[in-house]
Structures are given as structure tokens and as C-alpha cells.
């Protein structure tokens, strides 16, 4: 049984995304703890990439800030090892295929297992290419999380049948970033997902308000929020943990 299941055992799951090292790893540690203490059920830790093609301007900015602060994959592994002493909720890495590939899939994924990372989200690794890392992920018991998009159509059942951990449903076309309105017929997508798998599904991309989170978690098993949190971190910097904590609480309260 995947450890990620625990995230979906407390009602609807609230899943914040945080870029590691934005603005520095000490702040990230405090932000992660604040999120966990205020009701986050699973945390997506972003390993920054120089050219994040699935991200909008807000998360691109976080990637640049983190990298120019000197953060590396090795420093992030050490940081996770450290916060794992205090944070017990499931955590996954969100990064790009090249970060895993260039580190060496075996070395990267075995380290994930060792430091307590439960899954891996790679937005540039679609179903057709998942064998790049899947055998190694399975060897070490790290879930390779699949994504479903508004354009997936006939691909939904194929992806859902083989999904692990949880399914990440992309709410809208385009890249990450807050949106005033989400127009995709997500209920129909979730219906097909449910017909093909028992693993939970969460909706991400474009969610920023408690109302949106409530609406999305009514349809699925949870809501994922990235850009809205990154904006808080961008605004308050080292002082952001308190504000992220308050925000996470408001979101979790809305979907509870």
C-alpha cells in the first residue's frame, strides 16, 4: 500500500506545492513545517529546473530564485533528510525528467526512498515515456505519479489503469498559474478515472481561492495549489512561513 494513501485519509486532501530553495532552504524548511502543521495532507516539493516548460511565470520565477541561490539536487536531498525528522505527512518531488536522468535514475530514486520521498511527479514524462523511470521507481517503492489533462480524452482510461500513488488531474489547458475561472468538464474526467482505478485523484493548475479548492475537491479527492503559495513566498520571503501556514489553514478548512 502506497504511503501516499495516508494523504487521502483525512477527508479531502489539500496539497501545497513549494519550490525548494526559494528563497533559501532554511525558509523552505519553515514553510514545509508551517504547511504540515496547518493541515496540508501531502507536500509537493519542487526541485528547480533551469527551463521549466510546464510552468507559468510565477513558478518560473521561483525556479530562477532558487537556482540563483545555489540550490542543487544534493542540497535538496540533505534538506529532506533533515526535515523528515519533524514532518511525517507524505511528500513527493515535482521536477523535470532531465533532473532525474542526469543525476542517474537509480541513484536519484534510491535516494528518494532512503530520505522518505513517497513519489515523483514529472510533467514532461507522459505515459509513452514512463518506462524511462518506472522500473526503478517500482524497484524502490517510489510512486511515479501520472497526469491527466483536459485534452487526454481517449487516453484517460489507459493512464488511470496503470496509475500509482495518486492521479494528478490538470484542470486547464496551458501552464501552471492562478486562473479566475476553470472551465474544463472535470466531473466527466473524474468519472472515467473512477471507472478505471481505485487510487485517489487530485486536481491542480489554476486553483488559488478557498472557493475554487472546495469546488475542485467536491469533484475529486483533493486540490493541489502551487502558484498561489509561491506568490506568498515571493511577497514575504523569509517571513513567509507564517503567511503560508495561514493560507494552508484557510484552504484545508474550506475543503475539509
Amino acid at each position, binding site marked *: 500500500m502506497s504511503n501516499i494513501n495516508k494523504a487521502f485519509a483525512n477527508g479531502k486532501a489539500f496539497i501545497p506545492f513549494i519550490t525548494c530553495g526559494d528563497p533559501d532552504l532554511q525558509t523552505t524548511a519553515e514553510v514545509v513545517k508551517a504547511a504540515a502543521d496547518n493541515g496540508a495532507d501531502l507536500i509537493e516539493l519542487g526541485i528547480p529546473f533551469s527551463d521549466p516548460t*510546464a510552468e507559468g511565470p510565477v513558478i518560473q520565477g521561483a525556479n530562477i530564485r532558487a537556482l540563483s541561490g545555489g540550490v542543487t539536487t544534493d542540497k535538496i536531498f540533505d534538506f529532506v533528510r533533515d526535515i523528515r525528522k519533524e514532518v511525517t505527512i507524505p511528500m513527493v518531488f515535482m521536477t523535470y525528467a532531465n*533532473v532525474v536522468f542526469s543525476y542517474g535514475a537509480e541513484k536519484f530514486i534510491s535516494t528518494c526512498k532512503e530520505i522518505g520521498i513517497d513519489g515523483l511527479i514529472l*510533467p514532461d514524462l507522459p505515459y509513452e515515456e514512463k518506462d*524511462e523511470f518506472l522500473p526503478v521507481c517500482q524497484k524502490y517503492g517510489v510512486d511515479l505519479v501520472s497526469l491527466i489533462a483536459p*485534452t487526454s480524452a481517449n487516453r484517460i482510461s489507459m493512464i488511470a489503469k496503470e496509475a500509482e500513488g495518486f492521479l494528478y488531474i490538470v484542470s486547464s489547458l*496551458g*501552464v501552471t498559474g492562478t486562473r479566475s475561472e476553470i472551465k474544463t468538464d472535470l466531473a466527466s474526467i473524474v468519472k472515467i478515472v473512477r471507472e478505471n482505478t481505485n487510487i485517489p485523484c487530485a486536481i491542480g493548475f489554476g486553483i488559488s481561492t478557498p472557493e475554487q479548492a472546495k469546488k475542485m475537491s467536491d469533484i475529486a479527492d483533493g486540490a493541489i495549489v502551487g502558484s498561489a503559495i509561491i506568490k506568498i513566498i515571493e511577497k514575504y520571503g523569509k517571513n513567509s512561513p507564517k503567511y503560508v501556514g495561514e493560507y494552508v489553514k484557510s484552504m484545508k478548512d474550506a475543503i475539509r
Partner: protein
Amino acid sequence: MTNKNGRFGIHGGQYIPETLMNAVIELEEAYNFYKNDKQFNDELTALFNDYAGRPSRLYYAEKMTNDLGGAKIYLKREDLNHTGAHKINNVLGQALLAKKMGKTRLIAETGAGQHGVATATAAALMGMECVVFMGEEDTKRQALNVYRMRLLGSDVVPVKTGTATLKDAVSEAMREWTSRIEDTHYCLGSVMGPHPFPTIVRDFQSVISKEIKQQMLEKEGRLPDAVLACVGGGSNAIGSFYHFIEDKDVQLIGCEAAGRGIDTFETAATMNTGSLGIFHGMKSYFCQDKYGQIAPVYSISAGLDYPGVGPEHAYLHDIGRAQYVPVTDEEAVCAFEYLAKTEGIIPAIESAHAVAYAMKLAPTMSKDKIIVITVSGRGDKDCAAIARYRGEDIHE
């Protein structure tokens, strides 16, 4: 050459967001249908010949040959195509394909602006909407081409992220495509990105080597000993190599942009300084650090200023079928000036990289040998930048 899922050996593939998967599958299906469709091919041939001015000339560069004193040199004059570069070959093919698919809008990335101008041209011709993404740095280096695209009715979006050059323009075009797929075709300009782009672009560009072969047989009654072309992503090079891949006696030489030298950080010579990675939808060689962060590459040539190389080139490199040599800014600028003075042909600074290597290679070969250099584009666009490189400030 391609196997399933667009692999060239271990290279290629489709490393893209799920959002784009059905779009590339739809593109592949449409391409597989139309590439064998007589009407499509007739229309494309008519566009190539009557609109773009094909076949392009294979010109015997006699003065250059005599001056260098070695192998006989021919120039494949892609610079004479409409819009001034080989880019039009691919664009006419993709725009026609997009139109058949019912798309009404083209988006494209551009480095030097040649692909952007070609796409804007095809969009104007076919009555399609067009948006071109171009690194802000490149909009300054290639201001004339920005104006040409706007004149042709396209929007030009300056990309300010990252190094504000070609790689960032590709990233931004990909982002745009994920946000608007229904009516939009991403007219990718090189033999890179996710399958089926490396194959589609190669096929449309392979007209170059098809013509070289035929023209060489007519003029010399035999195949050349070497074919040289510059390589950024590698579209004019693969186009120049393709029909010679099976002719093992024909040496295939790709000329990469070494910038200030392959022993410096200011280089874009992917084969000579890069390592295996996954980026922009493909597995191939990339300039990157040990953590897989893509390197901020540099070349005087905006069209070669890219940290990766097309997957088929990576494969040709692996199996030793083609060799890839680095050429510095200085060597390319000297070749740019040399070809202008010797043959009265001003090549694009990209193409000048191939000319530069030919200047080293030809004298080492005997006079009965023949080499072909693809002059992928014309150099008008580069005059101001080269003047600046030489310390002269001219205003366009």
C-alpha cells in the same frame, strides 16, 4: 531510420506534457496520411518550385577552389530560396499540413529570425494567423527580421525568460501550444522537439540532399566526397545529409558553433561539450551542468545559439556516420568575409560556420576530391552584427 515512438537509436522520444500528447499523435497520423497523398505532394512541389524558387542551385565555387588549392568546392545555394534560407522548405510543408488538418493559426520559435520570417511568410500566403516567439536578446541582434515578420502580418513576442535566446523561445512556444491546441499548429523550425517533429522536419528538408545528389551526378557524374553543413538544432544539416546516409563513402560533417571556444563556457557546441539528457521533448545531447540544469550557451550566431541538437544527429554521431566539428565565432566571421570577397556571396553567419571548416578541410584534400557546402541562408541579416564584431557601428 526512425523506430517506434520516434527513436533514433536511444535518442528522440516524446518527453512532453500530457496536455500535448493528443496533439502530437494527431499530427503524426495526419503526416503519415499526407506524406503519401499525391495531391498533397503535388501542391507542395508546386510551392517549392514556383513560390520558393526550387530547385536551389549547386554552384561550382571556382575561385574559392583555386584559392584554397585542394578539393573542388560546390555550394548548395539555399540562400537563394525565397525568404533567404532553407527554413522555407520545412515551413511550406508544415503550413500546408496544418491547413489540411484544419488549423488556422501557426506559432513558431525563432533564433536568427529566418524560421520566424519563413513561418510568417507561409502564414501570409495561406491566410493563417501567426505568432512568433523570439528571445529578446535575438530581437536586438536580428532587428531587421523582426520588422520583416511584422510586415508579413505576424505578431512577434519577445521572450524575456532565461537567456532570452532560442532555447527560451522554444520553451515559450511550447507553453503557448499547451494553452491553445485546437486551432493552432506549432510550426517547429528544426529537427528537434518531440516525435514526430524531427522526422517531419527532416523529410521536408531532405529535398536539399535529394537535389545535391541529382545535380552532382549531372555535373560530375559521381557523388561528392564530403558534405558540410552548419548544425544548431540541425535542420539544414540533416536535409543536406539525408540522401547520402546510405552512401558510406560520402563524409558527412556537421559544423557546430564553438562561440569563443570549446574550452570556454561561452560555446554552443553540443556534440563537443554536451552530455546525454532529456529536454524540449527529446532525448539527445545537451550543454548542461552535472545536475541537468541547461547551460546558458553562447554563439555569435543567433541561429546556432541552442544548447541541444536534433536526435537524429545524436544518433549519426553515436554510430560514427557523421562527424561534428566545432567552429569559433572568429573563424566563422573570417569565413563570412572570405566568401563575400572571394565568390561575391554573403552567407548567413550560421552557414559561415560550414564555410570556415571547408576552408580548413579543402586544402588537405587532393584536387580530384569534391566537397559540397550547404549555404543555408544569406547574410544580409548579419551585416550589422558582424560590423559591430569588427568594431564598426553601422545603422540599418
